[in-house]
């Protein structure tokens, strides 16, 4: 089946510097996809290519099988919400929403009806005659959303639309966006650097790093099975320990920690090679911790407790390995085994082999 939106091998470079490369992504109709990554990772560049603000150096963007590249922005029929609202300051809320229809030379009666519908959808009835400068940040972003959707674009692009809002308002609008997505069924590409936002909103997440997509998948896939160390660090919290790879066997590896401990059955990712340096990744909530009862007789690895913070539903332990790497461990409230631990004391940690991942050591981002 032909994909709805097909982003093929996009590359954009300026002179010698490459902003994005090898970006491949197929999007189904009605999907909500976030581009997640730190600033400068190429996610906005990709969005700008789709919007037609930038011409890619290589690659193609196809919407329902037709290339968009030769279509100028104003004929692409794509909706977009920008980071800083970008409402027309000289037009009222209703005029802003009517703008796309006016430039499409739609009859005035139809414009009025359509605008009223959008104003209702975005819940802007009370402020429709105000100028953008008289609105709060949240209201402005809702107007921007209404303006971007009023002409029923098949695709809606959102470029960090909530980064200028405070946390509470952000959550409120995230909820609105989800509701509007469900009501309109529009396909959304959403750029953000906030992992929580991407987990909350989207069907699938494309994680960008240094101009490439590291991994595309659902939030659970990314969390359970990160493809790169970068994804592991960016999606959810992680502990990283340096190690050396002893043996690779298909998708599993045996590694040696700096204290000489040999750990087998670790899931390996990327081009992990025997004999090379690697990085062991663990999720803080998958690590078990308990007090030392006596030297030598315990299983697991000995660590020193540096800090204990009670956070209500869980307790956060900061521990240090014998080779001075620090780790975070979260113990859910009510789980036994961690009683009796004290700051400065010794403890033992262990984990289920399947929960450990090893990556080839790349420069940490």
């Amino acid at each position: 089946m032909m994909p709805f939106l097909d982003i093929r091998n996009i590359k954009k470079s300026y002179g010698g510097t490459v902003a994005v490369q090898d970006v491949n992504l197929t999007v189904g109709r009605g999907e909500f996809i976030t581009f997640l990554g730190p600033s400068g990772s190429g996610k906005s560049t990709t969005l700008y290519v789709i919007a037609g603000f930038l011409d890619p150096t290589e690659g193609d963007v196809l919407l329902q099988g037709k290339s968009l590249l030769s279509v100028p922005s104003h004929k692409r029929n794509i909706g977009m919400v920008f980071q800083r609202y970008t409402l027309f300051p000289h037009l009222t809320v209703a005029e802003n929403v009517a703008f796309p229809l006016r430039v499409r030379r739609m009859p005035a009666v139809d414009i009025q009806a359509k605008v009223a519908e959008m104003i209702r959808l975005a819940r802007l009835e009370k402020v429709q005659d105000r100028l953008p400068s008289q609105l709060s940040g949240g209201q402005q972003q809702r107007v921007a959303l209404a303006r971007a959707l009023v002409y029923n674009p098949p695709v809606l692009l959102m470029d960090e639309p909530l980064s200028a809002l405070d946390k509470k308002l952000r959550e409120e609008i995230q909820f609105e966006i989800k509701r509007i997505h469900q009501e309109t069924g529009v396909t959304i590409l959403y750029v953000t650097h906030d992992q929580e936002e991407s987990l909350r909103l989207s069907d699938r997440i494309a994680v960008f790093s240094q101009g490439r997509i590291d991994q595309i998948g659902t939030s659970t896939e990314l969390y359970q099975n990160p493809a790169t160390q970068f994804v592991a660090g960016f999606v959810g919290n992680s502990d990283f320990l340096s190690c050396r790879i002893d043996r690779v066997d298909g998708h599993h590896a045996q590694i040696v920690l700096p204290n000489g401990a040999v750990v087998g059955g670790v899931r390996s990712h990327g081009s992990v090679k025997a004999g090379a340096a690697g990085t062991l990744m663990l999720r803080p909530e998958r690590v078990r911790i308990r007090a030392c009862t006596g030297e030598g007789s315990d299983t697991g690895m000995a660590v020193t407790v540096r800090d204990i913070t009670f956070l209500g539903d869980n307790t956060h332990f900061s521990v240090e390995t014998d080779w001075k790497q620090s780790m975070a461990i979260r113990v859910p409230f009510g789980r036994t085994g961690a009683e009796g631990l004290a700051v400065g004391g010794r403890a033992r940690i262990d984990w289920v082999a399947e929960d450990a991942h090893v990556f080839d050591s790349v420069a940490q981002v």
Partner: protein
Amino acid sequence: MTSVSIVERGGGPPQRRRRRGGGFSYVLPALVLLLIVFVLPVLLLLLRSVTEPELGLQNYRELVESATYGRVFLNTFLVSSVVTAITVLVGFPIAWLLVILPKRWADLLFGIIILSMWTNLLARTYAWMVLLQRTGVINKTLIGLGIIDEPLTLVNNLVGVTIGMTYIMLPFIILPLVTTMRGIEPDLLRAAALCGAGRLDAFRRVLLPLSLPGIAAGGLMTFVMSLGYFVTPSLLGGTSNMMAAELIAQLIQSLLNWGMGGAAAFALLVLTLALYALQLRLFRRTQAGRA
């Protein structure tokens, strides 16, 4: 836990209360100078306009009724309007270009504008006097190209004045316009494009309305400055087509008619201030609309 945290409300350091009447002594020296060397002389001139040759408004009556003076003010308005129109039409694309050009080229163009603005006014006017002569480069070039047969009279008339004044006023409209246009978010025009607006729609419905405050401010300033301009009209203009400032100078310097000169000066002054007040109101309105 029983510790009490104190949350500071409102944030920021407390505003130091200002002493009433504080700071006036700092202003005093400049104020005294201004009152003695500016306010007083202007008031005295105004006084002369209603006392010479005798007490009354006869000078102002003559100013309004006389066809000669009427023509001078008409000339002044005509030249100022044409200069304003040309500078707006040319200045707008230049300001636009300055905002979007890659930095190196924008800096170069800016440098040329500042250079022309800071070069001595008389030096610039001299250049035009020479260029526009009957035997000057412009006439010679036009004849050489076969566009005209006889040299055009480009100097000692309002054509020369208009060219010279356009040259001088152009920077004054470009600079405020650049400030206004820099304030326009480029994303607004990207948004307009994605909304479906082609170039013409984006220009007509977004770029132009948002540049309008700058056009109004710069245009009005050019108009007001042109109204009272003296140097260029006297050097490039003819004796038969005087402008207001020349009239005032002539009335006082050559004819020693202080009463009439004062009246004309005062008329120009009131006109200028009224236009500035208008500009200030327009500016406040657009500011209020944005704030």
